[in-house]
C-alpha cells in the first residue's frame, strides 16, 4: 500500500505533460521540438524565453529531430536537453563543448547544439572554448548567461559584476567580470552573436543564423535568474538597455565588432561572422592529402 506512494513515482518528469501550453502555441508547430517533460526551472526564469526562441528557430529551419543532438553541462541551463524532442546528452559540468565536438566530428550530418550556463561555460569549462573556436567545428554554442550560479543557489559567476553581493561574495564580488563576447572575438570565433531572454523573437532569428552558419557559432544570451539575482540582470533593468546593432556595422570587420563589444552597450544580433573553412572541410583536405591552407 504505502509503497505506491514511494518517491520513485513522484518524479514529475515522468508523469507530467505539457498541457499547460495554450492551443495557439500548440498549433504553431514548435511543439514538434519540445519533449513532454515539464521544465524544472523557476517560474519566470529567462530560460523559458530562450527555449521558446530556440524551438521556433528549429521549427523554422525544419531541423530533422532524428539528427538533432543537444549537449549540455550542469546547471539550471544544463537541464535544457530534457525539454527538447531530439537526442540529448546532459553531460558533466563544463564539458559540453568537448562532448558536442566529439559527436559532430563523427556525425557531420547532425545538427549539434551545445548549451551551458556562464559558470559552466566560462568558469569550469572556460578552457575548452578557445579551442573549440580554433577548430571551427560546426556546432552552435548557446551560453545562457545569467551572471550567477543558479543551480547551486546563487554564487558569483565569471560574469557577475564587480562588487555584486552573492552567497560567496558577501562583501561584494572582488573580481572583474569577463566579457564573453569580447573573448569569443579574441579567440577568433567565426560567428559571434548576442541576445536577451526577454526578446524570444529576436533570439529566434539569431539562433537560425547561428545554426545555419558553417563553423563554430557562439551565441551569448543574457537571461535573468529571477530567484537569485534581484540586482543585476532583471527584466526591468535590461529590457530597455538593449540596442540595435548600428546599421552600418560590417559583420566581417573584427575590429569594429570588438569595439561594439567594449562600448558598454548590449547589442542584439550578430556582431561578427566570417566564412573560413569549418573543421570538416579542413579535414577533408587532409584526407585528400592536399594542402589544408588552400
Amino acid at each position: 500500500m504505502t509503497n505506491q506512494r514511494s518517491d520513485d513515482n513522484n518524479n514529475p518528469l515522468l508523469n507530467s505533460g505539457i498541457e499547460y501550453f495554450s492551443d495557439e502555441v500548440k498549433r504553431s508547430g514548435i511543439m514538434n521540438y519540445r519533449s513532454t517533460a515539464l521544465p524544472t526551472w523557476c517560474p519566470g526564469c529567462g530560460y523559458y524565453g530562450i527555449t521558446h526562441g530556440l524551438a521556433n528557430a528549429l521549427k523554422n529551419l525544419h531541423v530533422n529531430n532524428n539528427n538533432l543532438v543537444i549537449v549540455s553541462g550542469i546547471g539550471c541551463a544544463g537541464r535544457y536537453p530534457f525539454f527538447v524532442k531530439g537526442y540529448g546528452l546532459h553531460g558533466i559540468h563544463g564539458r559540453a563543448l568537448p562532448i558536442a565536438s566529439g559527436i559532430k566530428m563523427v556525425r557531420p550530418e547532425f545538427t549539434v547544439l551545445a548549451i551551458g550556463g556562464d559558470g559552466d561555460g566560462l568558469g569550469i569549462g572556460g578552457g575548452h572554448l578557445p579551442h573549440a573556436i580554433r577548430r571551427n567545428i560546426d556546432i552552435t554554442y548557446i551560453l545562457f548567461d545569467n551572471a550567477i550560479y543558479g543551480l547551486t543557489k546563487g554564487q558569483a559567476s565569471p560574469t557577475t559584476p564587480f562588487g555584486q553581493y552573492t552567497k560567496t561574495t558577501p562583501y561584494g564580488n572582488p573580481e572583474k567580470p569577463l566579457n564573453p563576447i569580447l573573448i569569443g572575438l579574441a579567440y577568433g570565433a567565426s560567428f559571434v552573436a548576442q541576445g536577451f531572454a526577454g526578446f524570444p523573437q529576436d533570439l529566434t532569428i539569431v539562433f537560425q543564423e547561428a545554426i545555419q552558419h558553417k563553423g563554430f557559432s557562439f551565441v551569448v544570451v543574457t537571461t535573468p535568474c529571477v530567484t537569485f539575482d534581484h540586482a543585476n540582470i532583471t527584466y526591468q533593468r535590461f529590457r530597455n538597455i538593449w540596442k540595435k546593432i548600428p546599421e552600418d556595422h560590417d559583420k566581417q570587420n573584427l575590429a569594429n565588432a570588438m569595439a561594439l563589444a567594449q562600448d558598454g552597450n548590449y547589442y542584439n544580433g550578430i556582431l561578427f561572422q566570417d566564412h573560413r573553412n569549418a573543421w570538416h572541410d579542413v579535414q577533408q583536405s587532409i584526407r585528400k592529402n592536399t594542402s589544408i591552407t588552400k
Partner: protein
Amino acid sequence: MIQAADDIVIKICGSAGDGSISAVEILNRAAALMGYHIMNFDAYPAEIRGFGKSVGHTRISRSVLLTTGKYTDCLVALDDVHAITELSTMSKRGVLIYDSKPPQYHQEDQAVAGFIEPGMIGYGIPLRELSTIAVRSSRSRNIVALGVLAALLHLQAEYFETAIRKRFSAKPETVIDNNINAFRLGFDYTLQNVNKYDELDFQHHVYSSNRDSIIMSGNEAAARACLDADLRLYAGYPITPATRIMEILAKELPLKGGFVVQTEDEISAAGHVVGAGFAGARSLTATSGPGICLMSEMINLAVMAEIPSVFIDSQRGGPSTGLPTKTEQSDFNIAAFGGSGDSPRPVLAPTSVPECYLLTRIAFDLAECYQTPVIILMDFFLSNRFEDIDLNQLNSNVFGRFTPQTAPLKDQPYLRFEVTDTGISPRAIPGMENMFHTVTGLEHDERGFPNYGKANHLKMTAKRHKKMETLVRDWQETGTFGPEGQLDVGFISWGSSVGAVMEAISLLNDQNIHSGGFFPRLLSPLQTSHLEVFSRRCKRIIVVEMNYTGQYANYLQVAISKRMERFTRVDAEPISSEDIVNWIIKDES
C-alpha cells in the same frame, strides 16, 4: 636465467646522436629476416637533453621471447664514458666490443675496457677508424659495429645488408652504399683480426622463415588495432609513453576516413571520446598517469550514462608526474577504483605486444556490447618494446565474441536504460528514427530521466553492476598457464610482468618446483571462479606486479580467503625472471 648460446642480449651504447638506437633497429630487422625472435627495449634518456646517453637494447633468440633479459651478453661501446655505466648489467661471461683506437680527447681512466670484470671478454675494434674509411667521419661506427657483431656472433651478413637497405630506403643511393661499406669493413676486420673465444654463437643458422612476421612495439600494435577496428575518432593529448599511438594515428587514420584531434587537455580528449561514443562511433584516447587522473570524472559520466568509450592508460612510474620514462604497474587502483561513487568498468591488461593489439580490438567490442567505458592498462615497457609478431597471432580471438544489442526501431516509448536480466539495455543511437532520449550523469530511470528515488537508485546501481557480471560470464579466456594439477607455487600476475613470470615458471619447473600461473587479461571485474579453482591447486600463491602496495593482490585477496604472498617491485625497470626464481628458491630451499 641461463641462456642458450643462441639466445643473446645485446646492448649498443653511445651518446645521443651516435646511432645506437638505429643500429639496434637494423639488427632486429636482420635477425627477424633470419627467422629469429627478438625483443627490443631501448633505454630512454629522461630529459630532452638527456645528458647524452642513449642505449639500444635487444634480445635475439631462436625461441619465443618473454622478457628482454636481465643481463647483457654483449655490450657495444660507441662511447666509453656512457658504456661504463652499463657494465653493471653485464652477465658474468659477457662480451664487450670497444673502440681500440679511441679519439685523442679520450681520457685514459675512462676507457671502458679498463672496467670489465674478470671472466668477461673484451674485443677492441678500431670502430672510428673503419668508419672514417667508409664515410670520412666517425658517424658510421654504429654500422661498423653491426659488422663486428655479425661476424662475431655468426649471423649471416646478407640479411644485414637487406636490413640496411630498408632502413635507408628513403636516402640517396650513396648513403646506402656507404653504410653497407661500413658494415663490410667491420665484418671483414673482425673475421680477419679477432680471435673469438666467447660462447655467443648463432651458428650461421637461418630458420626457414615462412612466418609472416613483422616487428612492432606495443604502441604500434595498439594503433594498428584501432585502424583495424574501424576507429572513427582518436582524441588525445600528448603524454609519455602514450604519445606515439596518436602520432601513428594522426598519419594513418585520416587515410581510412577517421579523424584525429589533438585536444587542449585530457578532459577534453575524454569528452570527445565520450561524445563520439554516444553518437555511435568507435572512439579512443590514450594517456598515462597524470592524464588518467584528469579523465576520472568523464569516465564516470560514461559509466553512468552507459556510453561506449575506450581509454588506454600506458602506465609509468608514479605518483604525480613521477618517472615519465620508467615502467611501472601502479595504476590498477585508479583504473578500477578511481571514480567517485560505485563506478564499475572493465579493466584490461595485455601481457605482450600482440595482446596490445588483440585487447585493444576487443575493447571496442566490449565497450559497445556492455555500453561502458573500458580501460586498457599498458605500460612504458609494453608501449616501447618491440617484438617480432607473427601476423597470424593478430587474427586469433580467445577472449569471446561480444555482440552489441541494438534496440528495434519504433518501440515507443524507448527505454534507453531498460532493466534486463543481463543489465544490458538494447541500444538506440542518435540519428535513428524516433528513438529520442537524453542520457545523463544524474541517476535516472529507465527512460533516462533524472530520478533520485530510493528504489530506483538501487535498481539502476544493480543494473550497472549486473553488466559486469554478464561480462565475466561471457569472457572466455581463463588466464591459466602452465601444468595442470597441484602446484607448489602458483603465480598470479598481469600486464607486462607476465612474460617474466612465464619464464620463471619454466625455470622453476625445470628445477622440479611445480609452478603454474593465473594471468587474467580481464583484470576487473574479476573472474572469481577461475581464481578459486586456481587457488585451490596451489600450495603457495604469489602475486607478481610492479608496484609498491600490491594493488592487484589487494583486489584479489578480497575474493578468496587463502592468503597470497606478494612479489612487488618498484624498480623503474621491468621485473626479471631471475629475481623471481631466486626469491622462490631462497624460500623453498
